[in-house]
């Protein structure tokens, strides 16, 4: 896929949508001096993501095997597809067999299931969560909506193509795909990881500007730093 910057990502001096909580403020320090606070700079790490090269040879192969067999899924349901995830922990599907477990915090998860349509508002949260996950990390896109917008393709507020905002490892088509399909998706993801092909976290870092421009194009009140650590 060619990723030219379709829309220019321009740094404006004055951000029209700068959220009030991001505006500079000055407070009185206990010793009477004035402290200037620039929330985005002072409270957030401003660094861009870096490409983290995989190790080489059998070590990486072994580690990839371990990563594939230990998929920790972030418990964040983004759309109507999230109703398909809970059945996975029931006796009928039992994803634990495959080393797939749920984690409540992005810091401890590797896999993010975008389960269905993403409104712009949710996309913002999804990006934030994705960026907070430690690398290597994988995305499974569930349902047609993530592929081309599905039945919401012409809605003013839902995205059409997820891969323009965050890199996707596995798409699972359908509206909605059943839990079996999701399990198949996990299997596919494992294959990719073991083959060393699931390096989308680095992809994201490499094309960071392009992704950021796309994201910023639709997320108008960008009240977060460019990259969420």
């Amino acid at each position, binding site marked *: 896929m060619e990723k030219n910057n379709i829309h220019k990502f321009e740094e404006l001096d004055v951000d029209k949508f700068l959220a009030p*909580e991001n505006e500079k*403020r000055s*407070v*009185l*320090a*206990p*010793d009477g*001096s004035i*402290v200037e*606070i620039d929330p985005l700079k*002072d*409270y*957030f*790490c401003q*660094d861009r993501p870096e490409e983290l090269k995989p190790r080489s040879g059998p070590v990486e192969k072994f580690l990839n095997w371990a990563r594939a067999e230990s998929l920790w899924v972030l418990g*964040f349901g983004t759309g109507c597809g999230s109703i398909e995830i809970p059945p996975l922990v029931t006796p009928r599907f039992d994803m634990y067999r495959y080393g797939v477990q749920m984690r409540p*915090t*992005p*810091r401890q998860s590797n896999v993010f299931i975008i389960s269905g349509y993403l409104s712009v508002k949710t996309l913002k*949260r*999804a990006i*934030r*969560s994705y960026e*907070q996950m430690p690398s290597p990390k994988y995305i499974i896109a569930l349902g047609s909506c993530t592929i081309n917008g599905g039945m919401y393709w012409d809605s003013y507020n839902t995205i059409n193509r997820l891969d323009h905002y965050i890199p996707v490892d596995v798409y699972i088509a359908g509206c909605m795909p059943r839990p079996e399909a999701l399990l198949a998706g996990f299997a596919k993801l494992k294959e990719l990881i073991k083959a060393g092909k699931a390096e989308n976290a680095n992809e994201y870092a490499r094309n960071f500007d392009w992704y950021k421009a796309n994201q910023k194009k639709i997320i108008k009140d960008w*009240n*977060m730093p460019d990259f*969420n*650590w």
Partner: protein
Amino acid sequence: MVGPIYIIAVALGLAFVMGLFGKSLKNLSEWAMLAGLGFMTFVSGQWLLEFMNNTRAVETIFTAGFKPPYSINLQMGIQEAFFTFIINVVGLLGGIYLFKDLKQTGPNAMMVFLVFVMSLNVVVMTRDMFNLFVFLEVGSIATAGLILLNNNGNALQAGMKYLIATGIISSILLVGIIYAYYFSGSLNIDDILAANLGASKVTVIAVFLIYVSVLLELKPFPANGWGIDVYTAANPGIGALVSAASASASLFVLYKLASLGGAEWLNYIAIIGGITFVGSNLIGTKQESPNRLLGYSSIGQIGLLTMIVGLSNILGEKMIFIASGILISHYAAKAGLFWLSGIINAKDIKGWAALRKSPFLLFLFGTFVFALIGFPPFPSFFGKWELIMTLATGGHWAWMVTILVGSFIEGIYLFRWLGYAIKLDHDELPDFKIEWNKIFPVWIMAIVLYAVGVYVSPLTEGGMFINYLPLMFVLFLFAIDFLPIYIKNTVSIGGIIWYMFHIYPVLENDLLRLIFAGIFLIGGVLTLMAGYNKKGTRKGFYPMAMMMYAGLIGIIESSSMLEFFFSWELMTAGSYFLIIRGKRSLPHGYSYMLFSIGGAYAILFGFGLAFASGFDTSLAALGDINILPTLAYSLLAVGFMTKTASLGLHIWLPGAHGEAESDVSPMVSAILLKAGVFGLMLLFLYMDRASAGANNLWYVLGWVGALTTLVGNMSAAFQEDAKRLLAYSSIAQLGYILFALSIMTHLGWLAGFTYTINHFLFKAILFLVVGGIVVKLGTHNMYEMGGMIKKMPFSFIAVLISIIVIGGIPPLSGFAGKWLFYNAILEKGWYFQGALIFFSGIVAFLYLYKLIHSIFLGQLKDNHRTVKEISAWILVPSYILIIGIMIFSAFPHWILKPIETMIAPYFSSQALMWDGTKALTSYGYWDGTTIMIVVGTAFVLLLTWLIVLSAKAKKIEQFNIVFAAERPFRPETTHVSYNIYAGYKKALGFVVAPGITIFWNVVSTFVLEVANWFRRIYSGNMQNYALHVVLYIVVFYLIALGGF
């Protein structure tokens, strides 16, 4: 020698001549009056000196050349000389004080003034009954005249009331004199006394009438409304004279006539005095006007003196000493206070905040208040001490209680007043002029108080051993108070270090005292070091701090009960001034003082019982109290427990320690509280271990200690104020110590010592560091802090180590305490108390976490982003203490072994054995050094492992956190600290419901309500007052003679 008759002659002559002065000589008359007063003072002073050198016999002067009963005779003995001298001195000083007022009113007023002083002289000296009556009348009329100097309606009314009341009284006195003359055939007092009028049922009426009128002259409670109004309405200069001079003269009259009726009548006098003392002080608690308050206080003090006269049979030869000690204090302090009141000229005692403008006046005010309450080194302290000891010897518990309760109530209002003067927030302080003639007499009175105090102290038993050296140092610091901080600080530290070397050889062989001396002196040096980071001159701090340390070290050094009590009171006074320096400390300093004097009186009572048991003044007397031993030990324990802030007596501590200045908090918490511990240790060591009473007491104290710990820790967990949290923690730690000591076994005491040392170390660190942070961040509230670890890493490490010690987490020294505790409890068999103690020990983690999390961890706030590390002058002493902790942790046997050897003789079994660095009991074992090595090695290995694994970790900012896919907006809303234990409070918060605070509030409200109820007697209506006087006579008659 000038004969005493010249006192009268000169006064009368001058008064007469002054009337002839024309306008041209008006200016001269003022100086003439002062010269006359000076002459009178000189004459009486000369006589007093002669008598004191024992170079003179009692002189009797016969006026008409006839011997009595045919003429009037005056007598000049040592007592007369003393009384005339003090009357003339206050007359002279009052004359100087009123210089301008008298000048305005003209020579007539001066005449009245001279006549007033003269009449009092005669009242003192005369030995003739009718003459006494005449000059009392003259005095009354002169007083009324002086009252009218204040040219306003109130003064007029008050003067009228005074005249009418004294009219009634003197008419009764006259009838009494007629009866006495009728029965004894003489008007000479000696003859009347010899007639023994009290013996017969017929003649007793004369006794009754004379007594009742003389007592009424002394304004007994409650028939004294007319007297109070005089104090309120008159010029304070006149008030001073009435309070100091008239009252002294009237008291002397009572003293002269004391043997008129016999022992039974003395009882009545004592009872009337006691009622007046307590009742008048009680009403004083509701007064807001300074002059009126002083009036009540005057009447109360005179009541106390009346009581002492009434108790003269019991007190025996000590009576003169006691009475003069208290009288001098009352005389000088009250005159000084009235004069101060005249200078300040405030309608309300709150207006005395203006006094802060002049530190010297404030100093004088403090001197007078402490002298009135009976603090050392003032004469009243020694007077009260002797009074209590003598009463205890005779077994007069009721009188002791009356005196102590009355004194305590007096403390209530006097310290409230003092607190207002020192601390009260006042928008605009009224201006006042300081004129030389007004300030001079006040200074004289203050000097009199100090001089007499030091002069009389050797006259008491054991008083000659009192070490005035530290006090001299305090005085020296007062003298250099204008210098900048670093000089005074260095001088103070130098003084303490010098004293360390001075005292070490003395205490070398007494480890118990050496340990506490170490805590007090080393702690003193370290906490004072923190003072270097303050700027300016810090007026008044160093003398007071040194006074506290002088008291503390005095407690250590003392060998007698008097020395101990002297130092105890000194320490209380010093620490009061330190505590009240805090910004919002006014109410807390006040409650500290009330609890302290209450505790001190309990101790005094206990000492009294101890003295009475064996007539031994040394501290060893505590060892064999055989009079009411359980009560005595309980009172002593309660007294010491007010300082250790045990449950029920703890409510003063959180505010006092929490609001104190940043370097005062460690002084009063880590160091001062140990004075109570030292007292308890002494007490417990001396107590008779076999007696059932002692064992019951220890059992109760054990439970009190355990509950204190629980309540202290749990309250600390619910605090939002960092320093209050630490203060509650202190309460709990002192609860541990009380519990450990109450176990009364070898292991228990070892645990107690371990806790004492540990508490000194970590609480000094915590209060120093947290105090520094509070100053730096400008807030006490922990939820307004956060994230300080990045700004203040050294403070964080200090606090971290301290909380590891408090928590008792191995390998640091706190664990030694816990381990000893477990063994001691198992050995003693106090399982349930023990379980409670351990439960509260874990509750401690709640507040420890809250403290360190809320201040150092979590989110850094906007306005603290530029904050720097706290001053090195705070960190250096903290780190010295940390080194202490580390040594104590790694080599506990260095410290515990000697302690163990020291306390071994006191306990039957030596329960702790040492095997190298390993401690063994019959239950378990513990090897501090090995644990330190094992834990240290393992920790280093694991840390290395983690660093190898995650060396590349990237540092991110404080808002880069998982926030449920959102982002934090403000650090204030992201920092979890406020009411963090809400769930716990819901479950167990009932434990810390403020029941005890409510109890004390109810008590104080009750006292004030009673005072308020009594106050309604004083309606200000003349007829009512006259009625009171008459009713008083009737009631007194019914009780004394009516067979009730």
